[in-house]
């Protein structure tokens, strides 16, 4: 009898111990699992932080560049050009243009570098500096700055003006301390007098850092990297987005309206639906191939034109806008439709007078997000020739042009890596800034409009 009781108690104890042990194990597994989940979330957030931190840290310094406030004497002995031509009455536009071109050619042949060397040598650095080194301190775009000043106002010849001249890419790198000071002369990009001049002028305050507005106002340049800017790429992207907004939004919304509100449920509409869903997931580069084969090769539209880029991006954004608009339409309560139909509205009136106004915030948000997505797309643009180097601001959507993401691609491939890595991050900041602005606009409009509705 006692034996049995004993074994029962022992068995209970054993069982209890077993359960306790397994509970501890299970709770341990629970904690580990939970921590694993938390770790994943933290990892994902860390990626965001590292990405943005990296971009900001490397890109922000590029927005400040070193300049030399130089006393430039517009030496009449160097600038030896006749009076600027004026269009005579009765002279044809073509003749005047030829005469003007001849004058500008004379102006372009002037050795502007001599003005620059003179002003660098006279800047009071107290360093003996030869002509070549003096020129290498200043960005080669400076001569065009001087030329444009004279072209705009020929009366400058013979006078002295204080002009803010950008330091060259190498000079800027040196001033920012990005080049090692321990390297021997043979491995330095700048000669010793040039480096000493920069150091002395920084100490005297003549060379100083200021905000590089030209990043926003200048076009891309290969010859003078320090003054290369994003204006051309920005206008190219602007034209493309204009095309996308004018085409993708109306066509996408109309298409969504038809499919959601009017289309009979049959095989053909099913086909369109499957087709749109698949189109949304087709890799963007395939749209680029379509553009290259159809727009460029069959229709002979110009290469590198924002119009063609806009058309390709339109086709790419269309499915996104259609799908988002359809889900906005689906969210409209059926009672609204039934009420409109019940008091005698036609289907078209029901859709355009009642359903569409209610979904307007949703459609607007979807469109802006679609446009933001198109703004960052690069791959299809490379295939229609938008990776060409273009040093002009496009005047029309048919001119050759770059685009912001393509400019990032072009700058990252520049040989002057030391200078352009920073510059590329700056371009990325501008691109991301625009996208964040667009998304913020979408959120702001949605909350504002939804509160009103």
């Amino acid at each position, binding site marked *: 009898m006692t034996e049995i009781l004993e074994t029962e108690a022992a068995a209970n104890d054993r069982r209890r111990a077993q359960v306790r042990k397994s509970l501890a194990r299970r709770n341990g597994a629970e904690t580990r699992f939970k921590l694993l989940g938390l770790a994943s979330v933290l990892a994902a957030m860390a990626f965001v932080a590292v990405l943005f931190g990296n971009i900001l840290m490397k890109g922000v310094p590029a927005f400040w560049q070193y300049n030399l406030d130089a006393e430039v004497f517009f030496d009449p002995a160097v600038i030896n050009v006749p009076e600027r031509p004026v269009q005579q009455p009765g002279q044809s*536009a073509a003749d005047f243009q030829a005469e003007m071109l001849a004058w500008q050619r004379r102006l372009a042949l002037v050795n502007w570098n001599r003005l620059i060397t003179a002003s660098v040598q006279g800047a009071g650095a107290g360093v003996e500096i030869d002509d070549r080194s003096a020129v290498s301190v200043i960005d080669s775009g400076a001569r065009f700055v001087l030329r444009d000043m004279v072209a705009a106002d020929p009366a400058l010849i013979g006078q002295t003006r204080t002009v803010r001249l950008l330091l060259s890419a190498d000079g800027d790198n040196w001033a920012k301390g990005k080049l090692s000071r321990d390297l021997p002369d043979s491995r330095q990009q700048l000669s010793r007098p040039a480096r000493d001049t920069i150091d002395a002028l920084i100490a005297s305050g003549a060379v100083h850092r200021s905000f590089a507005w030209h990043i926003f106002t200048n076009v891309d340049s290969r010859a003078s990297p320090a003054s290369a800017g994003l204006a051309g790429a920005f206008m190219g992207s602007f034209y493309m987005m204009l095309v996308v907004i004018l085409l993708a939004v109306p066509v996408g919304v109309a298409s969504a309206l038809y499919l959601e509100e009017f289309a009979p449920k049959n095989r053909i509409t099913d086909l369109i639906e499957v087709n749109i869903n698949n189109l949304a997931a087709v890799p963007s580069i395939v749209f680029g191939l379509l553009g290259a084969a159809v727009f460029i090769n069959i229709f002979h539209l110009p290469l590198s034109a924002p119009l063609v880029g806009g058309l390709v991006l339109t*086709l790419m954004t269309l499915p996104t806008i259609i799908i988002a608009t359809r889900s906005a339409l689906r969210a409209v309560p059926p009672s609204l439709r039934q009420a409109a139909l019940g008091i005698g509205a036609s289907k078209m009136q029901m859709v355009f007078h009642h359903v569409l106004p209610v979904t307007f915030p949703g459609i607007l948000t979807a469109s802006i997000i679609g446009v933001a997505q198109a703004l960052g797309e690069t791959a299809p643009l490379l295939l229609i020739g938008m990776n060409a180097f273009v040093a002009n601001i496009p005047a029309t959507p048919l001119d050759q042009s770059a685009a912001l993401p393509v400019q990032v691609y072009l700058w990252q491939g520049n040989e002057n890596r030391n200078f352009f890595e920073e510059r590329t991050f700056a371009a990325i900041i501008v691109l991301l800034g625009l996208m964040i602005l667009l998304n913020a606009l979408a959120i702001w409009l949605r909350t504002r409009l939804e509160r009103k509705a």
Partner: protein
Amino acid sequence: MTSLLIAALVLALMAVAYQQGVSRSKALAGVGRLHSRPQYHGALLALWATLPLLLILFLWLVTSGTLQDWYIAGQIPAEIAPGTSEYAGAAARLRNIASGFGVAGEAQAWETAAGVNLARFNTTLLMAAVGLGAILGVAALVLMRGRLSARMRARNHVEAAIKALLIFCSVVAILTTLGIVVSLVAETLRFFTFVSPVDFFFGTVWNPGYSTTSNDASGSYGMLPLLLGTVMISVIAMAVALPVGLMSAIWLTQYANPRLRNVIKPVIEVLAGIPTIVYGFFALVTVGPALSGLGDLVGLRVNATSALTAGIVMGIMIIPFISSLSDDIIRQVPRAMRDGSLGLGATKSETIRMVIVPAALPGIVGAILLAVSRAIGETMIVVLAAGNAPILRFNPAEPTSTFTVTIVTALTGDADFASPQSLVAFALGLTLFVITLMLNIGALAIVRKYREQYE
């Protein structure tokens, strides 16, 4: 200037027609009960009046260039042979004289005369087009105005026109797909006249010889090295994205409190909105060198641009894709299943592992397929960070190449468009399109089937 005037003309005609329709309709209202409101009569009339004008202007836009060339051909003296550069120069000079811009220096007598003639021809052509369009438009306006009646179903007609426009817009998506398929297939067939499909699909050497400018297929075009590179990078990307994405989704849906979740979720989704070129550059200048340094620490040689670099960064890009799709799918698992499991004494993690994830598995598989199709079609990250070395090797620490990289290299080079070196891009594009299409269709089918299960 002219185009503004023409636009003004179209708008004016439209406005007059609309006003006429409305006023006529109001007059009719006195006679009998109107079927449609006056605005619809106005809109119908405006449609009828402007359509012929727009049609003729469109015809003029399409044909005027050809007509002008034809007229110039008649003006240039016979001794300048067509097709030569002098001919093109003479034609350009004539156009400049006609446009009033003039030419530098003295124009020859025949040039001036021909230029004046050309200007007159252009003006006549434009005036004829605008005139004819306007006359037809006004005629249609008068004719249709007379036919307006109270019983006329103007609203139905206008709505039918709007509906036709809507249908046209939804056909654009179909046309796009058709355009993609037709252009890819046509160029691929052209490529297969140079290289046999067997060599392309099963060849193990990729060496198209971009440096040669000849139009023959002197190189080898085996796509297997590219396929290997694509698959390798996608596998690495999924190895990064799947655990992180799925576990984040589980933590956010099951453990996080709602307020924290509303903050964290958008932050992770920021990753999805960043342009891929940004990831590519990030991989090139930050991740690549870091991995290479890490490899040196443990004694492995890791190339800065390699399948590993591209794969890891692509994985980061795909995380929000996986996490938000799985998030939706996990929330669709019925609450009763979860509560049942918890009620039987299972811990939260046991419930997740043994009940929720198995129930959500088909949906998660669909999400994975969609993510893989994205990884395969991704371009800029691999263009910048994979190193573009199309060699058949299995080491992920070495540079590699993918379909998309090769498409970009083939079409951004200076090879002639009709050469196999360029056309191969379309064969690769078609392969890519078919692979991603199959993945997408499979994924959509799985996701749809799964949704029906619980709804």
